[in-house]
């Protein structure tokens, strides 16, 4: 069902966990649909210096979560915002069609975390 790269990221995901006192938190999905992703980020000088995830979901959801954290770390906010769900799937050499829409939310979660960070900064929290 899944290709080797997806399986690798599912079995050995990087950046699991939650950053303590994160600069931004993004959570997407909902348990009714079978997928929840929670991404926490640390930002320094407009750059993502740490990105962690927690995911309730299928292998695709876990692999994409892990992949986005790897892709995002070190990127500027602007670069990170340019990451899409599609680019995550591509980086994993593709996902089964049925998983493309439903479990491929990692970029959304990252963007939500960035948005949260931006809101907080704007409010000067």
């Amino acid at each position, binding site marked *: 069902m899944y290709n080797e790269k997806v*399986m690798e990221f*599912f*079995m050995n*995901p990087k950046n*699991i966990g939650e950053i303590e006192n994160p600069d931004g938190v993004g959570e997407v999905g909902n348990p009714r649909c*079978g997928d929840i992703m929670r991404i926490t980020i640390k930002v320094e000088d407009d750059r993502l210096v740490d990105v962690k995830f*927690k995911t*309730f979901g299928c292998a695709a959801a876990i692999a994409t979560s892990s992949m986005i954290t790897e892709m995002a770390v070190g990127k500027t906010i602007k670069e990170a915002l340019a990451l899409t769900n599609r680019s995550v799937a591509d980086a994993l050499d593709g996902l089964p069609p*049925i998983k493309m829409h439903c479990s491929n939310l990692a970029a959304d979660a990252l963007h939500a975390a960035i948005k949260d960070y931006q809101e907080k900064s704007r409010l000067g929290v």
Partner: protein
Amino acid sequence: MKSIYLDHAATTPMHPRVLEAMLPYLQEQYGNPSSVYSLAREAKNAVEDARKRVAQFIGASPQEIIFTSGGTESDNMALWGVAQANRGRGKHIITTSIEHHAVLDTAAALEKEGFSVTYLPVDGYGQVQVADLKAAIRDDTILISIMYANNEVGTIQPIKELGQVARDHNIIFHTDAVQAAGYLPLDVDRDGVDLLSLSAHKLYGPKGVGVLYIRRGVKVANLLKGGGQERGRRPGTENVAGIVGLGEAIRLCQGKMEERVERLRHLRDLLIAGVLAKIDHVRLNGHPEKRLPGNAHFIFEFIEGESLLISLDLEGIAGSSGSACTSGSLEPSHVLLAMGLPHELAHGSLRLTLGEENTEEDIERVLQVLPPIVQRLRDMSPLYKQRAKVSGA
């Protein structure tokens, strides 16, 4: 790594003797049973022997047995065929909310054709209440279809009582016995059953062969139209080898049913007890006693079923997160939802269904492998800490 197959509710390995029985019909005995020459006669006799065997297995007579392409076709023919042939008498059908899709989707198609369908609810264990059935019956009810045992959670229905209600009201009663066959004694007269579906590949027979029992006198329209095979009720050149395999599979599982069931039940109870002891935040679904002897069905809170399955597969253990045909989809099981489970829990199910080849060592292995997998996935889950804290507090 030895692989351990725990998905017997999806399909079973074929018994070697079933293959042996089939082989002649995949080789020199290739006659078309409808022809008149000797070669055909031997094929025909083989089909008729299988028919007798199936009839005897469920307490029917051979003329009441029709061979189909599987449980799906049998269920379709039962519902659609009864509806078409009896629409003059009424257009109301009763079934349950936990049937296999072969029944549910046929019922839905009949709704589009103007039939009205009542889907009976089930309790938390997945059981239909006799009182609910009674209450649902209307003057124009022509068919009641209730499965013998559920394919996901393994719950066994009180078929005899339900059949009695149907009989009291003179309503045609169909039961999908695809999962029950081979584990529970079937007797169409005792159980008041007018139509009954079976599928060979669930009882160590070949895939692509099924049975529909139709009680003599019950009107059922043909689903497929064509040649005169199966006494004019199911056209198409007979799958002779498949039918012979089905007959042999039934002969084998009839032989030592009690012993087999007892052994499975023992293994299953070991598995259930072990899982409940070793893992917390886990629940067993389905009825604690009235369940299929090989069925264990769990919910592991905070994690999702597919990732659990794939992790188990990497350890050589084959299980299911519900029915085989829904595991390609992302919908949570309609059975679990009907039993009242919230969506988030319904996503975390694991069905392990045992069979002939499984041993105590297999169970031990599962009990070793499963807890760390569950833990690993929970450690990744955003739901785990929050909830665990709450429930652990």
